[in-house]
């Protein structure tokens, strides 16, 4: 209703634009008497580079997460920029391997045509999760490994094409966006075969092909209507997989016969979305904006559907340069549905078909309101207060054991920024959040967060910054299906940052940083018992800590030579601990998932100019990973190294 009223108001206001039109024509008539503008003559620039790429890693290591071990070979790059006005174009292609490249293409004709294509390809080595050794004396559980670590990877390709066509002389245009992402490769598939019951568990690991593509196509129109700018768009999405499902043999259980059934299926998905947006001029005391969207997603394979609707409106009011008010309201609806039954059939004996009922999914409506006020108290002190509420209301939740379908959260935040001088800035923030009837165990009743940041420039070449933030969240009354004895949860995090930018002898610019990130959760956890209630392990503790030390150096650019180097050393550890003897004897479960890693990354890059537009550039990266765990549980991480190097000769015109 608000949006409709605003559009009507805009059209009325636009009628008064005719007066301005006449004034502008008079101004333009005067300007035409001046010399006619001539397009400047700016020569195009070109550069082409050819070189070699060397890359390799120990395939079982986690060091080369994004290195392409088969990427040794040719690398090339070219860049061109031209201004045959009114045409303008730009093309950059950096090819470091078939699975590692970047493309940026832009073309414009005046301000009426604009085209941009951004393309990225990246090679991602995947971790391999060993299932552990099989104890042949025990029939269940058993372990069946049909693959081997190393070689699991995906190549991710992302392409984003945007085309805009504007009406000459008017602020109105139509646009099209095409967004495609695809993955190809091979990944480890872990699956439970056998009968699926405790007396016949067959944990299996095998390689499967990855081959999927998802495309989005959006078309829309945009125009100014007096005080308002309005945009409407329609988009469709399509997801297909070349490897729809895997078929394996299962043994019989009380629910179905033995047979060959599908698992890990990737369905065919379609969705569509309509969006309408409007806003007033950004330059007024009063700025309003609103968005309405509706989206539907369909699973063409199973028939599951979900519909989303979102309405959001915001307003900012500048009372005077010292005081600004912000308001936002958003409502989001999710309406999920499924056919109510799922069927599974023996691929080799279709007569064995089984249909099972499926409970309806949870649907949810959420609404969010935010009110914020900012005030410049003095010339150097700005304070902000913000209050927001979030209400969630769920349908079909009781079928899922969620007894409290409605949740409400209230958040209050206060922050201040102080600039005692031109060279110093101090920022402090405090936030408290309260949730009524939290639904999931990882939500808290009360959460408090504080943050302090300080930046100071001792000199133009010496700047330091420091930051600290901490959060504490508490929950009383956890929800486990079979017990009420697990009640308490506390989670905490604190993060520290120190950074300095300074100059070293020889004019070398240096940036050194230290970051510590710490997260911890202490929670009563429950585990099933064959008799009676689940047992509770009170106060089980999870925590992870990371320290990151980094230094980056840059030699001053001289006429011929530039050089940059960097070193990052990261330590990460994570563990799960409990005092409960059931979980610690005879094997301590904490040893099965702990993480303790040291990773060192070295970077070196430089360019030497021979003159005449001829350059030699090199870009080297080396990573070392040390897995510090005792490997009581064989995990994916193994010690190892990874390297990538590119050498290229480039000629520019």
């Amino acid at each position, binding site marked *: 209703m608000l949006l409709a009223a605003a*559009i009507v108001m805009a059209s009325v206001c636009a009628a008064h634009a005719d007066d301005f039109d006449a004034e502008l024509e008079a101004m333009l008539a005067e300007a035409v008497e001046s010399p006619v503008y001539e397009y400047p003559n700016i020569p195009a620039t070109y550069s082409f580079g050819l070189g070699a790429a060397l890359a390799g890693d120990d395939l079982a290591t986690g060091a080369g997460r994004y290195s392409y071990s088969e990427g040794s070979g040719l690398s090339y790059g070219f860049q061109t920029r031209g201004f045959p006005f009114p045409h303008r174009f730009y093309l950059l292609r950096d090819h470091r391997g078939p699975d590692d490249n970047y493309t940026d293409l832009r073309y414009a004709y005046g301000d009426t045509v604009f085209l941009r294509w951004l393309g990225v390809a990246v090679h991602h080595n995947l971790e391999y999760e060993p299932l552990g050794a099989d104890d042949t004396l025990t029939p269940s559980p058993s372990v069946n490994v049909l693959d081997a670590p190393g070689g699991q990877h995906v190549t991710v390709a992302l392409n984003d094409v945007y085309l805009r066509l504007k009406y*000459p002389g008017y602020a109105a245009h139509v646009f099209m966006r095409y967004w495609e992402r695809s993955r190809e490769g091979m990944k480890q598939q872990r699956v439970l075969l056998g009968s699926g019951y405790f007396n016949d568990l067959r944990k299996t690991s095998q390689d499967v092909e990855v081959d999927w593509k998802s495309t989005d196509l959006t078309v829309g129109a945009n125009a100014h209507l007096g005080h308002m700018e309005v945009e409407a768009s329609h988009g469709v999405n399509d997801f297909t997989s070349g490897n729809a499902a895997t078929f394996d043999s299962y043994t019989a259980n009380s629910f179905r016969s033995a047979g060959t059934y599908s698992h890990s299926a990737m369905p065919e998905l379609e969705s569509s979305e309509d969006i*309408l947006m409007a806003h007033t001029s950004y330059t007024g005391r009063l700025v309003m904006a609103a968005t309405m969207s509706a989206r539907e997603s369909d699973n063409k394979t199973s028939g599951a559907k979900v519909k989303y609707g979102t309405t959001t409106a915001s307003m900012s009011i500048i009372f005077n340069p010292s005081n600004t008010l912000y308001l936002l309201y958003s409502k989001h609806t999710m309406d999920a549905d499924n056919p109510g039954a799922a069927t599974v059939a023996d691929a080799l004996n279709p007569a064995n078909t*089984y249909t099972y009922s499926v409970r309806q999914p949870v649907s949810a409506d959420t609404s969010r309101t935010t009110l*914020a006020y900012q005030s410049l108290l003095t010339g150097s002190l700005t304070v902000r207060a913000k209050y927001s509420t979030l209400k969630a209301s*769920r349908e079909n939740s009781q079928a899922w054991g969620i007894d409290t379908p409605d949740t409400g959260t209230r958040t209050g935040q206060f922050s201040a920024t102080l600039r005692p001088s031109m060279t110093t800035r101090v920022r402090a923030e405090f936030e408290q959040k309260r949730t009524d009837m939290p639904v999931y165990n990882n939500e808290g009743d009360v959460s408090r967060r504080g943050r302090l940041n300080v930046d100071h420039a001792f000199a133009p070449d010496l700047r330091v*910054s420091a930051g600290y933030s901490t959060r504490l969240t508490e929950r009383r009354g956890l929800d486990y299906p079979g017990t009420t004895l697990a009640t308490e949860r506390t989670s905490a995090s604190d993060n520290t940052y120190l950074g300095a930018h300074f100059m070293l002898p020889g004019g070398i610019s240096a940036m050194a940083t230290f970051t510590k990130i710490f997260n911890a959760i202490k929670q009563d956890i429950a585990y099933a018992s064959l008799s009676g209630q689940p047992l509770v392990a009170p106060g089980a503790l*999870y925590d992870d800590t990371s320290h990151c030390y980094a230094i980056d150096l840059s030699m001053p650019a001289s006429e011929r030579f530039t050089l940059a180097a960097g070193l990052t050393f990261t330590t990460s550890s994570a*563990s799960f601990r409990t005092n409960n003897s059931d979980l610690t004897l005879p094997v301590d*479960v904490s040893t099965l998932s702990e993480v303790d890693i040291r990773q060192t990354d070295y970077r070196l890059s430089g360019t030497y100019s021979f003159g005449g537009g001829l350059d030699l550039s090199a870009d080297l990266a080396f990573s070392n990973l040390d897995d510090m765990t005792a490997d009581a549980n064989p995990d994916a991480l193994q010690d190892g190294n990874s390297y990538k190097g590119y050498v290229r000769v480039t000629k520019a015109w």
Partner: protein
Amino acid sequence: MAFRHRGTIVLLCVLAVSALLMAGCAALKFSRPIMPVKEYERMLVGSLDADYIGTNNCLAACHAHDKIRRDFTASTMGAQMSADSGMPMVDCESCHGPGSGAVKGITAEKVAEDAARGIETACNYNALIDIKNLPVPAKSLMCLRCHTANATFNLHNFATGSHAMNEVTCINCHNVHAGPDLITSPHDVSVMCFECHSQAKAEFSMRSRHPVNEGRVFCTNCHNPHDTFNEKLRREETVKETCVRCHAEKRGPYMFEHADLMEDCLNCHRSHGSPNRDLLVANETFLCMQCHEGHRTSAGAASGETKFAYYIRCSDCHSTIHGSDSPSPSGRGTFIQ
């Protein structure tokens, strides 16, 4: 409810088209502020004693800004919309104010004389608008005066976004004199973001991470630096919609899902980096046991072998954890099949 949203959107589109026809095409040229902020607009007028002299006169005697001028002319700011108008789209004085006071008394001869004495002739910058010391909203207004009228929906939510509220302006990220490319390259975005969001850079060095430091994923893939209605400047309305922009295989919907927990991937994953595999918030099995009871197959303590079976990773068996259309062997939706 969502269907009613779609019908409402169609109705409003019809209204918008009708309003367009009523207003006439002339209205398309204009976008004017509701109650101009006169205090800031006065700051951007510049010296009332000075005259506009044009770019050629601003830089006629001085070569120190030759590169800036060449880059600016080659950019969309300096490009000509139409040769008939006789004016460039934007020139020096559009932002710096009327320049006659800054170049008063400076001639090519004087510049040459000073250069012979080893002196670089300086303009009287005090006669121009003191952009560095403008209040933050005035700095933004300098750009928004034009970028509110040329159909740029990038800034749709800028006014009430986190960046605007925290005094981040256009020129914190956009250096209009850096070169002819005024579109900030995705490669440069991350470097800019890390200047304030330094913790994120450390997160991207962790064992499991998005390849931002490798230059293959960019902050702008998930966040809109020009602000959105969504928390943390997320591009899409929900966390899930933001993640499935790339991780499309997780979009669903599926017959068997994790209730509405799936709408927020951050329930189980971190977005930047994690010491745990797959960007997990906590390692399995603790991650799952926050909400689910663990397995136990006998009245006594689980044997070592049982622990290996159940307590390494829940997803070894519950492998289709993001959603499945297949019932498990028992006919239920336990994400085994």
